[in-house]
């Protein structure tokens, strides 16, 4: 994080608004951040009209988010914006100085695997939001955002442990470091379904394997 903010400062634009400058990169226009944000949001208007959910990669200092929210508000009864921002210092400063009043906007920070472990984020992503890149933020954190966009969830029980509930762990055998596929194959190749946990795993496997079919 220190490296991330080795040269971090907040400057004031010509029209008196705060603009973060990180490693020499201005996250917004130093002349008129709101005008720039408005143009940015209009560039995504068609997507915002078609979809009431937006995933924004980069918080900046929130000007572009507010313009996006205005468009969503004009075209949808309900909308939701989730912002992914890895720079926790930036999030802290933003909340201290500006903060979104709109409860439909949320900022998520942290390790990528942690973000994908959050049920609220997963529920949001399941609705296939429009993905909007804030280019200057994206360029600064290219590796983070690229990893975020290409994330694949780990499949072994050991790496799922933080997400598995107590109920799930009591119903399934998650004690071995294996994937669902591996466990199913192990049960099948053993030729014996030993206990309730095995039966539940086989039932679960039938759910995910295909549409529910008749027995035989």
């Amino acid at each position, binding site marked *: 994080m220190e490296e991330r903010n080795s040269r971090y400062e907040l400057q004031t634009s010509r029209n008196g608004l705060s603009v973060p400058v990180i490693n020499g990169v201005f996250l917004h226009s130093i002349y008129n951040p709101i005008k720039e944000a408005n143009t940015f949001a209009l560039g995504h208007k068609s997507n915002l009209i078609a979809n009431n959910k937006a995933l924004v990669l980069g918080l900046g200092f929130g000007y572009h988010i507010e313009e996006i929210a205005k468009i969503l508000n004009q075209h949808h009864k309900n909308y939701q914006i989730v912002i992914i921002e890895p720079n926790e210092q930036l999030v802290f400063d933003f909340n201290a100085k500006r903060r979104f009043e709109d409860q439909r906007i949320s900022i998520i920070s942290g390790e990528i695997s942690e973000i*994908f472990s959050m049920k609220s984020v997963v529920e949001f992503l*399941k609705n296939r939001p429009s993905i909007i890149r804030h280019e200057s933020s994206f360029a600064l954190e290219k590796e983070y955002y690229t990893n975020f966009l290409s994330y694949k969830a780990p499949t072994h029980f050991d790496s799922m442990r933080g997400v598995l509930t107590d109920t799930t762990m009591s119903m399934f055998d998650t004690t071995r470091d294996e994937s669902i596929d591996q466990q199913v194959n192990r049960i099948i190749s053993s030729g014996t379904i*030993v206990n309730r946990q095995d*039966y*539940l795993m086989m039932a679960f496997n039938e759910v995910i394997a295909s549409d529910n*079919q008749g027995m035989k």
Partner: protein
Amino acid sequence: MKKHLIINLGSEIEIIESAYLIASMLNEHPTDHIEVCVQAKYMEVAQLLSGVKVIHQLDLDQVRQYYHGAIYSNAFAMNEFSTALESVMSTDWDSIINYSNDSIAAYLVGGLKGENCFGTRVNSKGVAITSNKWATYQNYVASGEYRNVIDRPTVRNHIVSTPLYRDLDRIRINQDYALVANQNFNRIRQMKGSTSTKVIAINLSAGVDQYCISRAVLEDTIEVLEESTDFKVVLLLNGENYQKNIVNELNSRFNNSLISINVEPIALSAVLSNVDLLISTSNQQIAVADCLETRCVEIKEHSERNFRSNTIGESNYLIYAKDESALSSDILLAINEVFETELPISTLSSPNPTYKNVRDDYGSFQSQIRGDIDLTKEINYHLGRCISLENLGYSHNDQLIKHIKSNVDSDILTKFTSELREDLTGTVKLLLSSLRALKGLRNSETNLNSFISYLDQLIKIGQKDTIISGIVRMFEGRVENIEAEDTETNLKAIETALFELKADLQTVTTLIAELANNNTKTETEVSKSSNVQQTIG
């Protein structure tokens, strides 16, 4: 008081059909406690089931979405699954019923705490085991039929050894909606000047086969009904835009005189219990109407592979639409039969096969009353039903045999029995070869390959959809049910299954002999004869 869990992860229609079983179970044991487990998307439909204490919902689509999305941890899918089943898992059940006969439930049963399991379950070796001969019939015979010869509610009640009682309250009717619906329908009846006016509801929803009644058919049918003093038409919608468009188009044709009702799911049973007859495509609405014992005319697209009725109520009609131009006449004819009226019909002959649900001592069946008839298929259906029921323990249906013999052209019957005999002979040869090979196997293991080969050939016969194939599939089910650990017990059990197959085939032999009796024409004479269409059943 016993606690029963019915796992029904099937379609909406299957959920509604389970009302027959639930009502019958509660009729036998009124204090028993019944819970059901359904797919979350069918929760609304499940709430219509009368007598159910708790409905558990499992969101299969959600589990699949989590699992198949690469970015989502599989843990979310497992959490969704386990949370939905937590309460089901922690309960000690007196019986668990795999109603929908699916693979998920068949495994799930093994993970639950149940005294008895009805239907199909998977044993510790991973083999599908059925709880009784009816469950074997459902899993191995009925599943391979394009047209079920024994209706599903009858089979499922037998699986649970519960008689299928009639005249029971199967579907919940919301009393507030019932009161309003009753008042409104009385007003609708009086619009034609009489409280005895019959209300004919036309359901505008598409069928599960995606078939929709065309506007031309609707117009022709409505015109005749509205002109009659005996009937008043009510259009039923469920809020879909395409239905609103149809209503608007029909209203412009009938000077805004038509009554349409947008039926919320919670009000569906109250509305359907107030109509005198429902015309509908094949969907959950018609299944609800059937459970309420409201008369139904079901319309499906004609297809060789979609030959199933979704109603079992006596004197319901099922029309397979082949030719739209005659469909309105078919519908009106059915209405005339139900109410003994004389609505004008534009075509006396129609190619659309029309069936009437008939009830005999053995249950419900369909009898073709109109339309293009494939006599061989119809004989197959009726005799298939007769043989299946007899092999499942019912008495021999002498009446049906007599009826067929006296009403079907002897040439057609001779041709039919000759083909059936040929099918039977081939199967019996393989059966006897299998028995001989089994005997040989006991003497020397070198006969193993020949035994397996005969058994394979025998089981392959079951892959068709014929009377003999159904009997062979029942044998296959019996063999699959063998759970013996040692070879000798296994062979003994297979031998028993082969003898049971022999006994089942004997039913066909007897039947052929009965049909052939007095049927003395030779096959050559038959081939020269013209096909005469007859109505049977």
